[in-house]
């Protein structure tokens, strides 16, 4: 048992850290979903792409750096600590592993390089209005017509749909049998006629999410990934690849360090806010929770680095990780007091670093909902805990 990074990993850490210090855009503050404009986000990801680090989870054969899980974690942690935006996950960590396993060579060649350099942005077409946590009840239909599929239906909660060049979709190609059957996995160019993207404004007052409407959208049949009816298998495979970053350890670590610095710079009657025993207790509670999460995440990374499947410990990572993100943003808002009141205000009021604290607090209410709500997560975990 050994918790230290190896000498090679430490050297790697230093290398990434130096690069981040030199290259992270300091004038821009990222939000929970990345930078606030498509241009800023693409510029940052392209910078990482040039360095060969954007596709941080990819093996070398597909143009990734070939890092193991621990190196990926180090990279992510240094990225967050330096204040660099999180990268858009849809192409990099969701679609790419799917294409590597289920995609045709032609699909791999067409799409992967552009993802690795951020020449194309992706979004995810999973949820539908009637199918929230009950994903398999989706209705968007893709009917084969010669060499094309004709797609009709609606997707919702499409993050960065207004930025994306492409969308990967779960569509229904067959209505027979169990609802999990008859689902297929389709890649659709967002510029195809018949696609309409309508914004959904979230309670942070921003525009991250969209509704995407498909009306007689014609998609080349070559854009089907795997086979017809294989969509549910692919979707489950995709979910199993989300484990490592799902805990959000890197972001929460950066967040808590940032909050401590901020409190140490917030004057009070007698010193700084970080001297207040009840504030210290709250911070320590968060930090201790984070410590438990971080080492649980390490246990999973260790298994993955050894080529083993993640263990039971990993099943709670999303629940604990999202709860901690929420607790952390909540603390920042509340500790900001009056200074957290301004709403989408341009000017600095009081201590500027608290002014926008509520945005992440508001938006991250969604973190326990999307990707399978925490209630659904618990239903799943319960299955292997209780033998009925």
């Amino acid at each position, binding site marked *: 048992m050994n918790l230290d990074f190896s000498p090679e990993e430490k050297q790697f850490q230093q290398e990434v850290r130096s690069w981040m210090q030199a290259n992270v855009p300091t004038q821009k503050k990222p939000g929970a979903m990345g930078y606030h404009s498509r241009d800023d986000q693409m510029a940052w990801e392209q910078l990482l792409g040039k360095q060969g680090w954007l596709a941080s989870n990819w093996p070398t054969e597909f143009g990734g750096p070939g890092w193991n899980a621990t190196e990926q974690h180090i990279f992510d942690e240094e990225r967050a600590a330096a204040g660099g935006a999180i990268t858009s996950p849809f192409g990099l960590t969701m679609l790419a592993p799917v294409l590597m396993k289920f995609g045709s060579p032609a699909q791999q060649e067409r799409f992967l390089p552009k993802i690795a350099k951020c020449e194309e942005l992706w979004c995810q077409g999973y949820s539908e209005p009637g199918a929230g946590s009950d994903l398999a009840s989706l209705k968007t239909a893709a009917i084969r017509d010669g060499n094309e599929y004709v797609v009709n239906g609606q997707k919702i909660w499409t993050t960065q749909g207004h930025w994306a060049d492409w969308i990967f979709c779960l569509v229904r190609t067959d209505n027979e049998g169990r609802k999990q059957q008859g689902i297929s996995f389709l890649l659709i160019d967002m510029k195809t006629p018949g696609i309409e993207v309508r914004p*959904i404004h979230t309670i942070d007052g921003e525009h991250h999410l969209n509704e995407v409407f498909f009306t007689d959208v014609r998609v080349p049949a070559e854009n089907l990934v795997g086979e017809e009816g294989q969509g549910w298998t692919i979707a489950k495979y995709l979910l199993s690849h989300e484990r490592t970053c799902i805990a959000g350890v890197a972001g929460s670590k950066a967040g808590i360090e940032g909050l401590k610095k901020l409190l140490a710079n917030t004057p009070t*009657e007698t010193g700084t806010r970080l001297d207040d025993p009840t504030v210290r207790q709250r911070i320590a509670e968060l930090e201790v929770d984070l410590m438990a999460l971080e080492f649980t995440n390490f246990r999973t990374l260790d298994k993955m680095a050894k080529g083993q499947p993640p263990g039971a410990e990993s099943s709670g990572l999303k629940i604990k990780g999202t709860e901690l993100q929420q607790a952390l943003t909540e603390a920042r*808002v509340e500790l900001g007091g009056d200074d957290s*009141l301004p709403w989408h205000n341009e000017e600095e009021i009081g201590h500027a670093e608290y002014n926008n604290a509520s945005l992440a607090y508001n*938006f991250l209410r969604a973190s326990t909902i999307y990707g399978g709500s925490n*209630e659904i997560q618990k239903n799943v975990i319960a299955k292997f805990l209780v033998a009925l």
Partner: protein
Amino acid sequence: MDFSLSSEQEMIRDSVNRFVEKDYSFDKYLDTVKTDAQMQPKTWQQFAEFGWLGQPLSETAGGYGGNAVDTSLIAEGLGNGLVLEPYIANIVFAGNLIALAGSSSQQEALVGPLVEGNKQLAVAFAERISRYNPAWCATTAQASDDGYVLNGEKHGVVNGANAETFIVSARTGGNAGETAGISLFLVDANTPGLTIRSYKTLGGGTAAELTLNEVTLSDDALLGAPGEGFAPLERALDYAIAAACADALGAMKAMLKRTAEYAGQRKQFGVPIGSFQVIQHKLVDMFIEVEQSTSMVLQAAVQADNDDRVTRRKAIAGAKAYINKSSKFVAQWAVQLHGGIGVTEELDVGHYFRRLTGFNLQYGDREYHLKQFAALSCDIEANAEQRAAA
């Protein structure tokens, strides 16, 4: 002991509910929340016509002499209807402060227009490091030949964008943190040396940051006796907190209602989500918090009128500490149980969520009020005496 409402109070409650139902749709809210003022003059005039603006203010000061329970009924209804107009900041807080501390000529000059809906005030007592403590006042008022010169900064001044006149706390003696030596001044928004940076707040409504740079005032700008501003300020603040708790309760009730309805309608896996036991139990938890908060609002409203400081302050601090937590619980779970739609602007649930976040940040957070409560309750001897006297 009697928890019944009088027939007048039932009328007040019904009138607010009717107004919200008839005249304050969610679209009206959305229109209003877009404005810089976060209020519409027409709506404010309706408030005047209903008599709500005079209701919380004493008859001697020119108001209608209602009690704090009446006020809490109005505030609860406004919170329930997501009404943005600055009733608490302008009327309950500033209005009561004028009524408590003002001379009869000041009351005449200000309370009349307030009651008629023709005046906007704001109380500027918080400072950058005061952290909700009204005794932490570092802004100074230097006596001059014919008045006072004020210097300092004020933060988080609720209704700051609309105020034509600010009630500013400033020190004519003593040191920051002491209750003695705080004086209150009426400062018009256009007074030279006063800089106002106003902004919209996350829960709706506005606030402002004030800079006072050699603000020169005449003697009659002084509100109440010099150096004795703390007591009325604290008292008026207690009225504001009691009303804010009622407002929050209204919002909590609205969220519970919407969530319970949604759970009965929204289907997942072929059944209403309300048939899932975890969702049922969470609704029960929310319901129980609403009931407990109702009790806290009732007792805070009754005690807001109590002249005994310890009893009153325990009631107010206890209510705000409790409801800061319970309202957060209800708000967070209302959003969670609504799923995706709960985090969007298009549904009112998200707006209630922000309103309650704003409630949490204004007039003292849970930690502040727990400390206040503990200071009053952990003095064993004082409590023993109080019990003996009861």
